[in-house]
Protein backbone atom coordinates (compact mmCIF):
# COMPACT_ATOMS: atom_id res chain seq x y z
CA UNK A 1 0.00 0.00 0.00
CA UNK A 2 1.31 3.42 -0.96
CA UNK A 3 1.49 6.01 1.80
CA UNK A 4 -0.90 8.89 1.25
CA UNK A 5 0.89 12.00 0.00
CA UNK A 6 1.01 14.83 2.51
CA UNK A 7 2.56 18.16 1.50
CA UNK A 8 4.59 20.20 3.93
CA UNK A 9 2.40 22.29 6.23
CA UNK A 10 1.81 25.76 4.89
CA UNK A 11 0.12 28.72 6.55
CA UNK A 12 -0.78 31.63 4.28
CA UNK A 13 -0.78 35.02 5.99
CA UNK A 14 -4.02 36.99 5.89
CA UNK A 15 -2.91 40.61 5.72
CA UNK A 16 -5.98 42.37 4.36
CA UNK A 17 -9.78 42.16 4.35
CA UNK A 18 -12.42 43.81 2.19
CA UNK A 19 -16.12 43.38 2.92
CA UNK A 20 -19.21 44.70 1.18
CA UNK A 21 -22.37 43.21 2.72
CA UNK A 22 -25.95 44.03 3.60
CA UNK A 23 -24.83 44.02 7.24
CA UNK A 24 -22.33 46.79 6.53
CA UNK A 25 -20.06 48.17 3.84
CA UNK A 26 -16.40 48.10 4.82
CA UNK A 27 -14.80 45.64 7.20
CA UNK A 28 -15.41 47.63 10.38
CA UNK A 29 -19.05 48.29 9.56
CA UNK A 30 -19.69 44.71 8.47
CA UNK A 31 -18.17 43.34 11.68
CA UNK A 32 -20.26 45.71 13.79
CA UNK A 33 -23.34 44.60 11.89
CA UNK A 34 -22.66 40.89 12.04
CA UNK A 35 -21.65 40.91 15.69
CA UNK A 36 -24.87 42.69 16.60
CA UNK A 37 -23.42 46.08 17.45
CA UNK A 38 -25.23 47.96 14.67
CA UNK A 39 -28.63 48.21 13.07
CA UNK A 40 -30.21 45.15 11.49
CA UNK A 41 -29.34 44.54 7.82
CA UNK A 42 -31.62 45.63 5.00
CA UNK A 43 -33.86 42.78 3.92
CA UNK A 44 -35.93 44.49 1.28
CA UNK A 45 -38.96 43.58 -0.79
CA UNK A 46 -37.73 43.94 -4.36
CA UNK A 47 -40.12 45.27 -7.01
CA UNK A 48 -38.58 42.96 -9.64
CA UNK A 49 -39.78 39.99 -7.59
CA UNK A 50 -43.16 41.36 -6.53
CA UNK A 51 -45.27 38.42 -7.70
CA UNK A 52 -42.98 35.62 -6.53
CA UNK A 53 -43.44 33.58 -3.32
CA UNK A 54 -40.07 34.97 -2.20
CA UNK A 55 -39.88 38.67 -3.07
CA UNK A 56 -37.19 39.80 -0.63
CA UNK A 57 -33.41 39.84 -0.50
CA UNK A 58 -30.59 41.10 1.72
CA UNK A 59 -29.74 44.27 -0.16
CA UNK A 60 -26.80 46.64 0.13
CA UNK A 61 -28.22 50.14 0.40
CA UNK A 62 -26.59 53.55 0.06
CA UNK A 63 -23.67 52.31 -2.01
CA UNK A 64 -22.93 54.80 -4.82
CA UNK A 65 -20.95 52.55 -7.13
CA UNK A 66 -20.85 55.20 -9.86
CA UNK A 67 -19.17 57.70 -7.53
CA UNK A 68 -16.81 55.09 -6.08
CA UNK A 69 -15.71 53.54 -9.35
CA UNK A 70 -16.37 56.22 -11.95
CA UNK A 71 -18.62 55.86 -14.99
CA UNK A 72 -15.87 54.63 -17.31
CA UNK A 73 -14.90 51.76 -14.98
CA UNK A 74 -18.38 50.88 -13.77
CA UNK A 75 -19.92 50.49 -17.25
CA UNK A 76 -17.86 47.38 -17.98
CA UNK A 77 -19.03 45.48 -14.89
CA UNK A 78 -22.23 43.93 -13.68
CA UNK A 79 -22.93 44.54 -10.00
CA UNK A 80 -21.10 41.46 -8.68
CA UNK A 81 -17.88 42.71 -10.27
CA UNK A 82 -18.44 46.23 -8.94
CA UNK A 83 -18.80 44.87 -5.40
CA UNK A 84 -15.64 42.80 -5.89
CA UNK A 85 -13.59 45.82 -6.99
CA UNK A 86 -14.80 47.88 -4.03
CA UNK A 87 -13.89 45.02 -1.65
CA UNK A 88 -10.53 44.46 -3.35
CA UNK A 89 -9.53 48.09 -3.00
CA UNK A 90 -10.32 47.93 0.71
CA UNK A 91 -8.46 44.65 1.19
CA UNK A 92 -5.32 45.89 -0.55
CA UNK A 93 -5.33 49.17 1.39
CA UNK A 94 -5.90 47.22 4.62
CA UNK A 95 -2.85 45.10 3.81
CA UNK A 96 -0.77 48.25 3.40
CA UNK A 97 0.07 47.35 -0.20
CA UNK A 98 0.71 49.92 -2.90
CA UNK A 99 -0.26 48.53 -6.35
CA UNK A 100 1.93 51.13 -8.04
CA UNK A 101 4.98 49.70 -6.29
CA UNK A 102 4.41 45.96 -6.00
CA UNK A 103 5.92 43.26 -8.22
CA UNK A 104 2.70 42.97 -10.22
CA UNK A 105 3.59 39.72 -11.97
CA UNK A 106 3.66 38.02 -8.56
CA UNK A 107 0.14 39.17 -7.62
CA UNK A 108 -2.74 36.80 -8.40
CA UNK A 109 -6.51 37.14 -8.22
CA UNK A 110 -8.91 34.25 -7.52
CA UNK A 111 -12.58 35.13 -7.09
CA UNK A 112 -15.51 32.78 -6.77
CA UNK A 113 -19.02 33.40 -8.05
CA UNK A 114 -21.91 31.05 -8.67
CA UNK A 115 -23.89 33.04 -11.20
CA UNK A 116 -21.71 35.90 -12.45
CA UNK A 117 -23.67 38.62 -14.20
CA UNK A 118 -27.00 36.84 -14.28
CA UNK A 119 -29.04 40.05 -13.73
CA UNK A 120 -27.60 41.57 -16.91
CA UNK A 121 -28.30 38.34 -18.76
CA UNK A 122 -31.88 38.48 -17.47
CA UNK A 123 -32.21 42.11 -18.64
CA UNK A 124 -30.79 41.39 -22.07
CA UNK A 125 -32.99 38.35 -22.55
CA UNK A 126 -35.96 40.62 -21.94
CA UNK A 127 -34.57 43.07 -24.53
CA UNK A 128 -34.21 40.24 -27.04
CA UNK A 129 -37.71 38.86 -26.59
CA UNK A 130 -39.52 42.19 -26.29
CA UNK A 131 -37.53 44.47 -28.64
CA UNK A 132 -35.60 42.19 -30.98
CA UNK A 133 -32.04 41.08 -31.63
CA UNK A 134 -30.73 44.52 -32.58
CA UNK A 135 -31.52 45.89 -29.10
CA UNK A 136 -29.24 43.39 -27.34
CA UNK A 137 -26.15 44.97 -25.79
CA UNK A 138 -22.71 44.05 -27.13
CA UNK A 139 -21.60 43.90 -23.49
CA UNK A 140 -23.44 40.66 -22.71
CA UNK A 141 -20.39 38.38 -22.72
CA UNK A 142 -17.94 40.60 -20.81
CA UNK A 143 -20.48 41.50 -18.16
CA UNK A 144 -22.01 38.08 -17.55
CA UNK A 145 -19.01 35.75 -17.54
CA UNK A 146 -18.24 34.32 -14.09
CA UNK A 147 -14.63 35.50 -14.40
CA UNK A 148 -15.85 39.11 -14.71
CA UNK A 149 -15.04 39.86 -11.07
CA UNK A 150 -11.54 38.38 -11.27
CA UNK A 151 -10.68 40.21 -14.48
CA UNK A 152 -12.16 43.48 -13.20
CA UNK A 153 -10.17 43.29 -9.96
CA UNK A 154 -6.95 42.36 -11.76
CA UNK A 155 -7.43 45.27 -14.16
CA UNK A 156 -8.33 47.74 -11.42
CA UNK A 157 -5.36 46.79 -9.25
CA UNK A 158 -2.88 46.20 -12.04
CA UNK A 159 -2.27 42.62 -10.93
CA UNK A 160 -0.42 40.77 -13.71
CA UNK A 161 -0.09 37.33 -12.13
CA UNK A 162 -2.56 34.53 -12.77
CA UNK A 163 -6.21 35.52 -12.36
CA UNK A 164 -9.14 33.19 -12.47
CA UNK A 165 -12.68 32.50 -11.40
CA UNK A 166 -13.78 29.57 -9.29
CA UNK A 167 -17.35 28.38 -9.68
CA UNK A 168 -18.56 25.65 -7.38
CA UNK A 169 -21.97 27.12 -6.55
CA UNK A 170 -22.27 28.18 -2.91
CA UNK A 171 -18.80 26.98 -1.94
CA UNK A 172 -17.12 29.12 -4.64
CA UNK A 173 -15.66 31.71 -2.25
CA UNK A 174 -14.19 29.07 0.04
CA UNK A 175 -12.74 27.12 -2.87
CA UNK A 176 -11.25 30.36 -4.20
CA UNK A 177 -9.41 30.92 -0.92
CA UNK A 178 -8.33 27.29 -0.85
CA UNK A 179 -7.06 27.62 -4.40
CA UNK A 180 -5.14 30.76 -3.40
CA UNK A 181 -3.63 28.85 -0.47
CA UNK A 182 -2.40 26.20 -2.89
CA UNK A 183 -1.00 28.78 -5.33
CA UNK A 184 1.00 30.43 -2.57
CA UNK A 185 2.19 27.06 -1.31
CA UNK A 186 3.61 26.14 -4.71
CA UNK A 187 5.30 29.53 -5.07
CA UNK A 188 3.26 30.48 -8.14
CA UNK A 189 2.86 33.95 -6.65
CA UNK A 190 3.58 35.99 -3.52
CA UNK A 191 0.22 37.70 -3.06
CA UNK A 192 -3.31 36.61 -3.89
CA UNK A 193 -6.50 38.64 -3.66
CA UNK A 194 -9.06 35.89 -3.09
CA UNK A 195 -12.66 35.38 -2.05
CA UNK A 196 -16.10 35.65 -3.58
CA UNK A 197 -18.58 38.08 -5.09
CA UNK A 198 -22.26 37.76 -5.99
CA UNK A 199 -25.28 39.92 -6.77
CA UNK A 200 -28.24 38.11 -8.26
CA UNK A 201 -31.41 40.09 -8.06
CA UNK A 202 -32.59 38.09 -11.03
CA UNK A 203 -36.27 37.43 -11.54
CA UNK A 204 -35.33 34.36 -13.56
CA UNK A 205 -33.17 32.84 -10.81
CA UNK A 206 -35.47 33.59 -7.90
CA UNK A 207 -38.49 32.26 -9.80
CA UNK A 208 -36.61 28.99 -10.26
CA UNK A 209 -35.43 28.91 -6.63
CA UNK A 210 -39.06 29.33 -5.55
CA UNK A 211 -40.09 26.40 -7.72
CA UNK A 212 -37.29 24.37 -6.17
CA UNK A 213 -38.60 25.33 -2.71
CA UNK A 214 -35.07 26.25 -1.69
CA UNK A 215 -35.85 29.80 -0.50
CA UNK A 216 -37.90 31.07 2.40
CA UNK A 217 -41.39 32.30 1.62
CA UNK A 218 -41.84 34.24 4.85
CA UNK A 219 -42.96 37.37 2.97
CA UNK A 220 -44.71 38.86 5.99
CA UNK A 221 -41.53 38.95 8.08
CA UNK A 222 -38.45 38.98 5.83
CA UNK A 223 -36.03 40.07 8.59
CA UNK A 224 -36.85 36.85 10.47
CA UNK A 225 -36.93 34.58 7.42
CA UNK A 226 -33.30 33.42 7.49
CA UNK A 227 -33.08 31.38 10.70
CA UNK A 228 -30.29 28.79 10.53
CA UNK A 229 -30.62 25.77 12.84
CA UNK A 230 -34.07 26.95 14.01
CA UNK A 231 -37.02 24.58 14.22
CA UNK A 232 -39.08 26.86 11.97
CA UNK A 233 -36.53 27.45 9.21
CA UNK A 234 -38.01 27.17 5.72
CA UNK A 235 -35.23 27.95 3.28
CA UNK A 236 -32.46 30.41 2.57
CA UNK A 237 -32.72 34.10 1.76
CA UNK A 238 -30.52 35.42 -1.03
CA UNK A 239 -28.12 38.26 -0.30
CA UNK A 240 -25.58 40.21 -2.30
CA UNK A 241 -22.02 41.06 -1.36
CA UNK A 242 -18.32 40.51 -1.72
CA UNK A 243 -15.69 39.30 0.70
CA UNK A 244 -12.03 39.30 -0.29
CA UNK A 245 -8.81 38.57 1.55
CA UNK A 246 -5.24 39.49 0.77
CA UNK A 247 -3.20 36.34 1.30
CA UNK A 248 0.57 36.27 1.20
CA UNK A 249 3.38 33.82 1.45
CA UNK A 250 4.40 34.18 5.11
CA UNK A 251 7.98 35.14 4.29
CA UNK A 252 6.72 37.82 1.90
CA UNK A 253 4.48 39.32 4.58
CA UNK A 254 7.30 39.17 7.13
CA UNK A 255 9.84 40.78 4.79
CA UNK A 256 7.69 43.86 4.36
CA UNK A 257 6.69 43.97 8.02
CA UNK A 258 3.01 43.47 7.28
CA UNK A 259 0.50 43.12 10.10
CA UNK A 260 -0.89 39.58 9.92
CA UNK A 261 -4.52 39.19 10.94
CA UNK A 262 -4.58 35.37 10.92
CA UNK A 263 -3.39 32.40 8.89
CA UNK A 264 -5.09 30.05 6.46
CA UNK A 265 -3.48 26.86 7.77
CA UNK A 266 -5.41 24.11 6.01
CA UNK A 267 -7.74 23.44 3.12
CA UNK A 268 -9.83 20.49 2.07
CA UNK A 269 -12.35 19.93 -0.72
CA UNK A 270 -14.49 17.03 -1.83
CA UNK A 271 -17.41 16.04 -4.02
CA UNK A 272 -20.53 14.28 -2.83
CA UNK A 273 -21.00 12.68 -6.26
CA UNK A 274 -24.57 12.26 -5.13
CA UNK A 275 -27.09 14.85 -6.40
CA UNK A 276 -27.44 18.05 -8.42
CA UNK A 277 -28.98 19.88 -5.49
CA UNK A 278 -29.31 17.77 -2.34
CA UNK A 279 -26.35 17.22 -0.03
CA UNK A 280 -25.28 13.68 0.78
CA UNK A 281 -27.75 12.83 3.59
CA UNK A 282 -24.97 11.35 5.71
CA UNK A 283 -22.74 14.39 5.26
CA UNK A 284 -19.80 12.22 4.27
CA UNK A 285 -18.66 14.63 1.57
CA UNK A 286 -18.36 17.70 3.79
CA UNK A 287 -16.86 15.46 6.49
CA UNK A 288 -14.15 14.40 4.06
CA UNK A 289 -13.40 18.02 3.20
CA UNK A 290 -13.20 19.01 6.86
CA UNK A 291 -10.99 16.06 7.86
CA UNK A 292 -8.69 16.86 4.94
CA UNK A 293 -8.43 20.51 6.01
CA UNK A 294 -7.67 19.50 9.61
CA UNK A 295 -4.96 17.09 8.49
CA UNK A 296 -3.55 19.75 6.15
CA UNK A 297 -3.26 22.11 9.12
CA UNK A 298 -1.84 19.38 11.36
CA UNK A 299 -4.69 19.86 13.84
CA UNK A 300 -7.46 17.71 15.29
CA UNK A 301 -11.05 18.47 16.17
CA UNK A 302 -10.00 19.15 19.75
CA UNK A 303 -7.95 22.14 18.56
CA UNK A 304 -10.90 23.90 16.92
CA UNK A 305 -12.65 26.49 19.06
CA UNK A 306 -14.98 28.14 16.57
CA UNK A 307 -16.89 27.22 13.42
CA UNK A 308 -18.48 29.63 10.96
CA UNK A 309 -20.88 27.11 9.47
CA UNK A 310 -22.47 27.06 6.04
CA UNK A 311 -25.82 27.15 7.94
CA UNK A 312 -28.14 28.18 5.12
CA UNK A 313 -31.46 27.89 6.95
CA UNK A 314 -32.65 25.04 4.74
CA UNK A 315 -34.05 22.01 6.54
CA UNK A 316 -31.61 19.56 4.96
CA UNK A 317 -28.35 21.52 5.05
CA UNK A 318 -28.48 22.58 8.67
CA UNK A 319 -29.26 19.14 10.05
CA UNK A 320 -26.69 17.34 7.91
CA UNK A 321 -23.98 19.90 8.57
CA UNK A 322 -24.59 20.12 12.31
CA UNK A 323 -24.58 16.34 12.66
CA UNK A 324 -21.29 16.21 10.76
CA UNK A 325 -19.72 18.95 12.89
CA UNK A 326 -20.71 17.07 16.05
CA UNK A 327 -19.23 13.86 14.65
CA UNK A 328 -15.89 15.41 13.63
CA UNK A 329 -15.32 18.19 16.14
CA UNK A 330 -17.43 17.26 19.16
CA UNK A 331 -19.52 19.63 21.24
CA UNK A 332 -16.99 22.22 22.35
CA UNK A 333 -16.59 24.63 19.36
CA UNK A 334 -18.61 27.83 19.35
CA UNK A 335 -20.67 27.40 16.17
CA UNK A 336 -22.48 30.15 14.33
CA UNK A 337 -24.04 30.95 10.97
CA UNK A 338 -23.71 34.59 10.00
CA UNK A 339 -26.12 34.24 7.07
CA UNK A 340 -28.98 35.61 9.14
CA UNK A 341 -27.09 38.93 9.04
CA UNK A 342 -25.75 38.84 5.48
CA UNK A 343 -28.22 36.61 3.65
CA UNK A 344 -27.00 33.68 1.62
CA UNK A 345 -24.63 35.37 -0.78
CA UNK A 346 -24.11 32.14 -2.74
CA UNK A 347 -20.70 32.28 -4.44
CA UNK A 348 -19.62 35.16 -2.22
CA UNK A 349 -20.56 33.40 1.02
CA UNK A 350 -17.26 31.61 1.54
CA UNK A 351 -15.29 34.81 1.00
CA UNK A 352 -17.44 36.88 3.35
CA UNK A 353 -17.62 34.18 6.01
CA UNK A 354 -13.92 33.39 5.94
CA UNK A 355 -13.25 37.10 6.45
CA UNK A 356 -15.66 37.06 9.39
CA UNK A 357 -13.86 34.02 10.80
CA UNK A 358 -10.57 35.93 10.63
CA UNK A 359 -12.22 38.77 12.55
CA UNK A 360 -13.66 36.33 15.11
CA UNK A 361 -10.15 34.98 15.73
CA UNK A 362 -8.77 38.49 16.10
CA UNK A 363 -11.53 39.72 18.40
CA UNK A 364 -11.98 36.37 20.19
CA UNK A 365 -15.67 36.91 19.70
CA UNK A 366 -18.22 34.72 17.92
CA UNK A 367 -21.05 36.55 16.13
CA UNK A 368 -24.55 35.32 16.91
CA UNK A 369 -26.92 33.36 14.71
CA UNK A 370 -29.68 35.91 14.95
CA UNK A 371 -33.26 34.66 14.50
CA UNK A 372 -32.37 31.37 16.19
CA UNK A 373 -35.29 31.46 18.61
CA UNK A 374 -36.18 27.79 18.90
CA UNK A 375 -33.20 25.52 18.24
CA UNK A 376 -34.14 22.42 16.26
CA UNK A 377 -34.04 19.57 18.83
CA UNK A 378 -32.56 17.26 16.19
CA UNK A 379 -29.49 19.51 15.86
CA UNK A 380 -26.85 17.90 18.10
CA UNK A 381 -24.70 20.98 18.69
CA UNK A 382 -25.17 24.22 20.55
CA UNK A 383 -25.21 27.23 18.25
CA UNK A 384 -24.39 30.75 19.46
CA UNK A 385 -27.61 32.74 19.22
CA UNK A 386 -29.01 36.17 20.00
CA UNK A 387 -25.81 37.82 21.20
CA UNK A 388 -22.14 37.56 20.32
CA UNK A 389 -20.20 35.32 22.68
CA UNK A 390 -16.62 35.85 23.83
CA UNK A 391 -14.32 32.85 23.68
CA UNK A 392 -10.71 31.79 23.84
CA UNK A 393 -9.68 29.92 20.72
CA UNK A 394 -6.58 29.66 18.55
CA UNK A 395 -8.08 27.82 15.59
CA UNK A 396 -11.34 28.03 13.68
CA UNK A 397 -13.08 26.34 10.77
CA UNK A 398 -15.11 27.61 7.83
CA UNK A 399 -17.31 25.08 6.04
CA UNK A 400 -19.14 25.46 2.73
CA UNK A 401 -21.40 23.23 0.66
CA UNK A 402 -22.50 23.92 -2.91
CA UNK A 403 -25.19 22.67 -5.26
CA UNK A 404 -23.70 19.80 -7.22
CA UNK A 405 -22.02 18.40 -4.11
CA UNK A 406 -19.03 20.76 -3.98
CA UNK A 407 -17.75 20.76 -0.39
CA UNK A 408 -14.91 22.84 1.03
CA UNK A 409 -13.40 23.58 4.42
CA UNK A 410 -10.71 25.92 5.64
CA UNK A 411 -8.80 25.84 8.93
CA UNK A 412 -7.71 29.24 10.22
CA UNK A 413 -5.31 29.97 13.06
CA UNK A 414 -4.52 33.06 15.11
CA UNK A 415 -1.57 35.18 14.08
Amino acid at each position, binding site marked *: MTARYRPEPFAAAVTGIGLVTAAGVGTAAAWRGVSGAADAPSVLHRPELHDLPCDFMYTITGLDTKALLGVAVQ*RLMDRFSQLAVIAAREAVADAGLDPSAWDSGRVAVVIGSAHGGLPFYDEQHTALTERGA*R*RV*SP*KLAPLTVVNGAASSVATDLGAHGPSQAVSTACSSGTVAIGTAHQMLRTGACDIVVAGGAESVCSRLLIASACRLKAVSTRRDDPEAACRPFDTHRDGFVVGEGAGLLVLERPEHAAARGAAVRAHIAGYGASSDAYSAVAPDPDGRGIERALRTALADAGLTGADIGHVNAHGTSTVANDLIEATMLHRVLGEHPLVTSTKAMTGHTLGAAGGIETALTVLALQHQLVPPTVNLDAPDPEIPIEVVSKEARAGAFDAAVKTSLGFGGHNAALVLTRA
Partner: protein
Amino acid sequence: MSTADEISTLLVANFGTDPVAIRPEASLRQLRLDSLALEELRLLIEDRMGIDLDDVQLTSRDTVGQLVDAVHGKAAA
Protein backbone atom coordinates in the same frame (compact mmCIF):
# COMPACT_ATOMS: atom_id res chain seq x y z
CA MET B 1 -30.85 69.75 -28.64
CA SER B 2 -28.44 69.48 -31.61
CA THR B 3 -27.05 66.16 -32.78
CA ALA B 4 -23.62 67.14 -31.43
CA ASP B 5 -25.13 67.92 -28.04
CA GLU B 6 -27.07 64.64 -27.99
CA ILE B 7 -23.88 62.66 -28.65
CA SER B 8 -21.89 64.67 -26.15
CA THR B 9 -24.52 64.03 -23.48
CA LEU B 10 -24.40 60.29 -24.16
CA LEU B 11 -20.60 60.21 -24.02
CA VAL B 12 -20.42 62.04 -20.70
CA ALA B 13 -23.24 60.08 -19.04
CA ASN B 14 -22.36 56.59 -20.24
CA PHE B 15 -18.61 56.60 -20.76
CA GLY B 16 -17.44 59.25 -18.31
CA THR B 17 -15.87 61.24 -21.16
CA ASP B 18 -14.44 64.63 -20.25
CA PRO B 19 -16.74 67.18 -21.97
CA VAL B 20 -13.75 69.40 -22.78
CA ALA B 21 -12.20 66.57 -24.81
CA ILE B 22 -15.27 66.21 -27.04
CA ARG B 23 -14.15 68.35 -29.97
CA PRO B 24 -15.06 67.79 -33.65
CA GLU B 25 -11.48 66.92 -34.60
CA ALA B 26 -10.94 64.50 -31.71
CA SER B 27 -10.81 60.86 -32.76
CA LEU B 28 -13.03 58.38 -30.96
CA ARG B 29 -9.86 56.52 -29.97
CA GLN B 30 -8.64 59.66 -28.22
CA LEU B 31 -11.86 59.55 -26.22
CA ARG B 32 -10.95 55.97 -25.22
CA LEU B 33 -13.78 54.39 -27.20
CA ASP B 34 -12.73 50.90 -28.24
CA SER B 35 -14.71 48.56 -30.51
CA LEU B 36 -16.97 47.44 -27.66
CA ALA B 37 -17.68 51.01 -26.64
CA LEU B 38 -18.44 52.02 -30.23
CA GLU B 39 -21.08 49.33 -30.56
CA GLU B 40 -22.54 50.31 -27.20
CA LEU B 41 -22.61 53.94 -28.35
CA ARG B 42 -24.34 52.96 -31.60
CA LEU B 43 -27.12 51.29 -29.59
CA LEU B 44 -27.46 54.27 -27.26
CA ILE B 45 -27.72 56.74 -30.15
CA GLU B 46 -30.29 54.58 -31.92
CA ASP B 47 -32.42 54.34 -28.77
CA ARG B 48 -32.14 58.02 -27.90
CA MET B 49 -32.75 59.39 -31.39
CA GLY B 50 -35.01 56.71 -32.79
CA ILE B 51 -32.82 56.05 -35.84
CA ASP B 52 -31.12 53.05 -37.43
CA LEU B 53 -27.33 53.21 -37.76
CA ASP B 54 -26.91 49.61 -38.93
CA ASP B 55 -25.26 50.58 -42.22
CA VAL B 56 -23.00 53.23 -40.69
CA GLN B 57 -19.37 52.13 -40.45
CA LEU B 58 -17.84 53.20 -37.13
CA THR B 59 -14.18 52.86 -36.23
CA SER B 60 -12.03 54.36 -33.50
CA ARG B 61 -10.18 56.33 -36.19
CA ASP B 62 -13.31 58.33 -36.97
CA THR B 63 -13.59 61.77 -35.43
CA VAL B 64 -16.40 63.16 -33.34
CA GLY B 65 -17.25 65.45 -36.26
CA GLN B 66 -17.58 62.50 -38.66
CA LEU B 67 -19.82 60.69 -36.18
CA VAL B 68 -22.02 63.75 -35.76
CA ASP B 69 -22.33 64.13 -39.52
CA ALA B 70 -23.25 60.46 -40.00
CA VAL B 71 -25.87 60.57 -37.26
CA HIS B 72 -27.21 63.90 -38.48
CA GLY B 73 -27.57 62.47 -41.96
CA LYS B 74 -29.62 59.56 -40.67
CA ALA B 75 -31.72 61.75 -38.41
CA ALA B 76 -32.53 64.06 -41.30
CA ALA B 77 -33.40 61.22 -43.67
